[in-house]
């Protein structure tokens, strides 16, 4: 970038850079820190393939079995290639939905960890119905009869992030971002200049603080370090308490609450 963001002028873009920082923890790190050795990975969408951009399986949070689904960017060049830089194909979203339906069957809560610049834009992804796969997740998650919690741990890129974020509550790490479009994409479409990404990041309101104020997320989580055992234990307890609260609701109440959550977002100006 020829025009590096100035910390004082464009704090939102600083957050974007922090969210993309490849040295930070990725989904597999969070899964390891939260679930330890109890995690068992489950693969495949049963239709086409196993998408390695999505890591999913079962793990124990203390005494509670949980279905966990994360978008994984990879921690080094080799992993990043394997994980397609955390850009999922339709089969990734279908694997996620398969395991969410399985969680519903066995009354397990679902934890989604989102870190993606977006769903993969490619020929194969389009041929196999990227739009349809995301749409189906949105529809089915809305009425999933088990508690669902999503934590944005890095980048939340548009529909590819939302496809795992139709949840009872959505939380963000303090350095995570969540947006309808990347600031570079926004700047190049609107202003024909991707160097204006820092300005676009401000305008898009994509930081955790912005989204909390807009009523899009329920909680901002302090950025943990991998060895911060105390921090992960308090996160574990917070997640469990949220699951327990929602598991106490009837199916009807749970689904009504989730519908109302999304129904009211952005309606303050609409009479």
């Amino acid at each position, binding site marked *: 970038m020829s025009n590096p963001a100035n910390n004082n002028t464009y704090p939102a873009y600083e957050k974007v850079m922090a969210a993309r920082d490849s040295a930070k923890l990725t989904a597999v790190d969070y899964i390891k820190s939260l679930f330890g050795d109890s995690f068992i990975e489950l693969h495949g969408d049963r239709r086409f393939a196993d998408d390695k951009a999505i890591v999913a399986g079962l793990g124990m949070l203390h005494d509670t079995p949980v279905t966990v689904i994360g978008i994984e960017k990879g921690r080094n060049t080799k992993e990043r290639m394997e994980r397609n830089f955390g850009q999922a194909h339709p089969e990734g979203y279908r694997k996620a939905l398969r395991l969410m339906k399985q969680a519903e069957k066995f009354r397990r809560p679902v934890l989604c960890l989102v870190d993606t610049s977006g769903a993969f834009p490619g020929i194969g992804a389009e041929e196999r119905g990227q739009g349809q796969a995301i749409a189906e997740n949105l529809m089915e998650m809305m009425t999933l009869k088990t508690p669902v919690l999503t934590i944005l741990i890095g980048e939340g890129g548009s529909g590819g992030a939302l496809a795992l974020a*139709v949840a009872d509550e959505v939380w963000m790490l303090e350095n995570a971002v969540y947006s*309808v479009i990347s600031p570079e994409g926004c700047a190049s479409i609107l202003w024909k200049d991707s160097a204006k990404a820092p300005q676009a990041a401000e305008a898009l309101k994509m930081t955790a603080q912005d989204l909390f104020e807009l009523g*899009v997320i329920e909680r901002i989580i302090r950025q943990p370090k991998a060895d911060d055992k105390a921090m992960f234990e308090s996160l574990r307890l917070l997640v469990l308490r949220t699951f327990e609260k929602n598991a106490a609701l009837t199916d009807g109440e749970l689904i009504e609450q989730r519908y109302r959550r999304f129904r009211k977002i952005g309606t303050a100006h609409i009479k």
Partner: protein
Amino acid sequence: MDFFAFVKPKNELEGSAEKQQNKPFVPEEMWVKCPNCNTLLLTTDMEENLHVCTHCEHHFRMSAKQRIELLADADSFEEYDAELQSVNLLGFPGYDEKLEKAKKKANESVRCGVCTLESVRTVLCVMDADFMMGSMGTVTGEKITRAFEYATARRLPVIICTVSGGARMQEGILSLMQMAKTSGAVKRHSDAGLLYITVLTDPTTGGVTASFAMEGDIILAEPNSLVAFAGPRVIEQTMRQKLPKDFQTSEFVLQKGFIDAVVPRSALKSTLAKLLRMHGYEEVK
């Protein structure tokens, strides 16, 4: 016969002897060039042919008003929520000016109401490319959600004609949230056992494709419409290669198994009416 001979020039200057010798003058609004076959069509002929090229069947884009006239029985469309207007709720630079311009061309990105279609009562939502390329803002999402809630409460089917460039980026994350919100409303309508048909028109892309456009019980598309999640330019940039010619057309997504049928505009109303009747929705007197 000289096709344009009867058309009089607008003024003396335009009708100069030299111009008349080279080609007959026709005021611009009277003819339109087909982007597909390059034939010069009289606008009136094209309009009478349902905005379809009389030479090659190219389907021109229709405004919401024209499409409502195409599908709803005469004077049967009762519009709802026409008073809901997009506002610049994030204070996004330049959005106020864009909205002002868009509002001169169309009321909103979608028009919703109830009508009869061959005498069968249905909720009908028609997106409008004239309003910021049918992009999905909070008002778009709210109107579509209300249309489904209305239909669910009254046990009516829903038909949506989509045309959209995707999410409205000037409304940021709130625009993205409309994908979830509309999908929730579609699901409730579906769970109530009611019929939802989508008609994809050129172009249907991005956040609309990845939500209510692809959630119909039956998904129809007009011929040769762009139907995509990621647009062809984005994919070309990622892949650094030219895409095949018919990639992401309605015929392509039909072949890949993602839509039920490609229906020419001339058969659209009768096809929709047949489908409504086959699902037990009856004619009203």
